[in-house]
């Protein structure tokens, strides 16, 4: 594995943007400024960024209800995302989708998804399209430990293996499906082990370490693009906030939360690149400030944007009324 300076800076910038974006939403939701539900990705940034670092605009991703990190990592504009979450006409789905339906097809982002386990079938379709057209496009399919137990996910893993689709399945195992611990909800002890059962390699990855994710995802996408078929990556991680904003988080301990915050992916990145003499602290500090400014600007953009015109309500939907 090799990482040049530009890639390292890109990784840190995207992770920091996600963290700032989510922290701001956490504050704004508490202040009553956000319509609808939001599910925040803070703590899991290393996964989206380590995976999407291998993708171009013409590669695809499918996402989850916790999709802001996937969007930012895939290059969706932050201003459009913030406006979308605020329900404004300048949002990337014209303010009609909100947090759980952000999509940007031009960036290969096929949509956040309010249906748990809704992404994997879409990922198979995207993978098949690339296969039929003979492209080297690959698809990243994000889902959670809760999604791993859905029938749609099992069917998709099987189909992808049967057709050797260029799909990388990324299970973000943050240990809780809403409020239910994986201790209660995973019959076999391994999610990664299910890959072998379906006929693809499945491995466990430290989801708090962007370098571990980056390296594993790189090999998985190489396999996908070379026609070797799908891969299952179980990235073990933790979400800093509740399942949704407003969740009282009675199902986990403060000690457990503190432990994961001690293994923060941004702090881990800093220590690795500084110990390895790969980047300077001043460069990282500058990115921190840049990300803070970008989020302030995004909020200002969203707040100054108009609400959608009610006359637009039935436009851009699949069924004509």
């Amino acid at each position, binding site marked *: *594995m090799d990482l040049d300076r530009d890639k390292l800076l890109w990784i840190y910038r995207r992770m920091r943007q996600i963290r700032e974006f989510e922290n701001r939403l956490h504050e704004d939701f508490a202040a009553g400024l956000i319509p609808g539900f939001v599910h925040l990705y803070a703590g899991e940034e290393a996964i989206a960024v380590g995976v999407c670092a291998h993708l171009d605009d013409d590669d695809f991703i499918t996402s989850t209800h916790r999709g802001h990190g996937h969007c930012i990592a895939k290059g969706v504009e932050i201003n459009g995302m913030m406006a979308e979450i605020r329900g404004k006409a300048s949002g990337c789905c014209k303010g009609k989708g909100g947090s759980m339906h952000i999509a940007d097809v031009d960036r290969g982002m096929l949509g956040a998804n309010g249906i748990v386990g809704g992404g994997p079938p879409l990922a198979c379709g995207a993978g098949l399209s690339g296969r039929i057209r003979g492209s080297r496009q690959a698809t990243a399919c994000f889902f959670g430990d809760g999604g791993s137990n859905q029938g749609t996910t099992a069917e998709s893993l099987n189909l992808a293996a049967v057709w050797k689709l260029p799909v990388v399945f990324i299970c973000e195992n943050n240990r809780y499906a809403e409020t239910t611990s994986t201790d209660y909800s995973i019959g*076999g002890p391994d999610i990664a082990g299910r890959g072998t059962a379906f006929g693809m390699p499945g*491995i466990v990855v430290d989801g708090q370490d962007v370098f571990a994710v980056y*390296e594993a995802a790189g090999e998985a996408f190489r396999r996908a693009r070379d026609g070797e078929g799908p891969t299952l990556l179980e990235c*073990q991680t933790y979400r800093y906030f509740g399942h949704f904003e407003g969740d009282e988080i009675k199902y986990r301990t403060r000690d457990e939360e503190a432990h994961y915050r001690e293994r923060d992916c941004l702090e881990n990145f800093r220590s690795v690149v500084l*110990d390895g003499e790969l980047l300077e602290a001043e460069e990282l500090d500058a990115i921190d400030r840049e990300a803070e400014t970008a989020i302030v600007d995004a909020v200002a953009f969203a707040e100054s944007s108009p609400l959608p015109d009610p006359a637009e309500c039935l436009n851009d939907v699949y069924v004509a009324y």
Partner: protein
Amino acid sequence: MPLIGIIPNPSSGKDIRRLVVDADGIDNQHKAKIVRRVLRGIAATADVAATTVAVMPEMADIRRRALDGLELPFPVDVLDTPCHGLAEDSLAAARALADRGAAAIVVLGGDGTHRMVAKGSRDVPLVPISTGTNNVWPRRNEGTLAGMAAALVADVRVPLEVACRQTPRLDVLRDGQPIDLALVDVAACDIPVPGARAIWDVTRIHQLVLSMAQPGVLGLSAIGGSLPPPPGGDRRGLALEIGPGGQEVMAPIAPGLVVPVAIRNVRWLEPDETVSITFRPGTLALDGERETAIGSNDDLAIRLNKNGPTMVDVDRTLELAADSGEFIMPCRSPA
């Protein structure tokens, strides 16, 4: 009251080498079955009225799965040690078992797991069961037999000086002070970060220090194992400079991966001999896993230490027990 520890690493056998070489995936249901067989082996062999077993807590809850429906004549406790899904969990469990005076520790993992256990187990005999990717230090022991051997050692029903053997280790020194250890190999490589940790591309390795260089093993130590022994035939520790300019050997360095390796220089090591890490910058890999950065000003060295962890030889233990009639029914009840 003999205490037998069990440390099952839920993360062993699941790393990136399932993607880049032909390594098997080893799932935790498999490990739960092994632990169940270990417990049955202990139950059949130990002085059960006096025995206690304690298991490391871990995310996959292998203990609970192993005990499902199993009635045992001794308690199987959970250690009160951290359960964070990190390698350090194994270290903490080993340390706690050593503090409690454990008579033996059964370990499920590969070289990396056994390294972490050895950092905390002090002189407690280890019963290794290989569930890793590269398994040079841990042998391919079957769970039932490993449990029986652990019980025989814990009850001192075999001569420990014959059933167990002390293995060497490699001390990692920074500025002359020990900061870490490896059981089998230390590699200085030019991969800039620990990342996915494993090493499978030998062209990235520049220095390699081995505590043992036996043929018939899989991993970086196989590079040394592919060389003829030194005069006298004693395959002891070895320091290699990797790169063109010398000889080339064929070595099985990972599952399904047998590759040519260029060796520029070979130096057999005596106990307590030290090798300076001159390659930099990069990372230092311990027992095949990239661990720490090698900074441009770091003064790092590796010392061969003959006082490494004690390993229970399962085959030898069972043979000794059989030779002394330990298995003649009715089984002799220990005093």
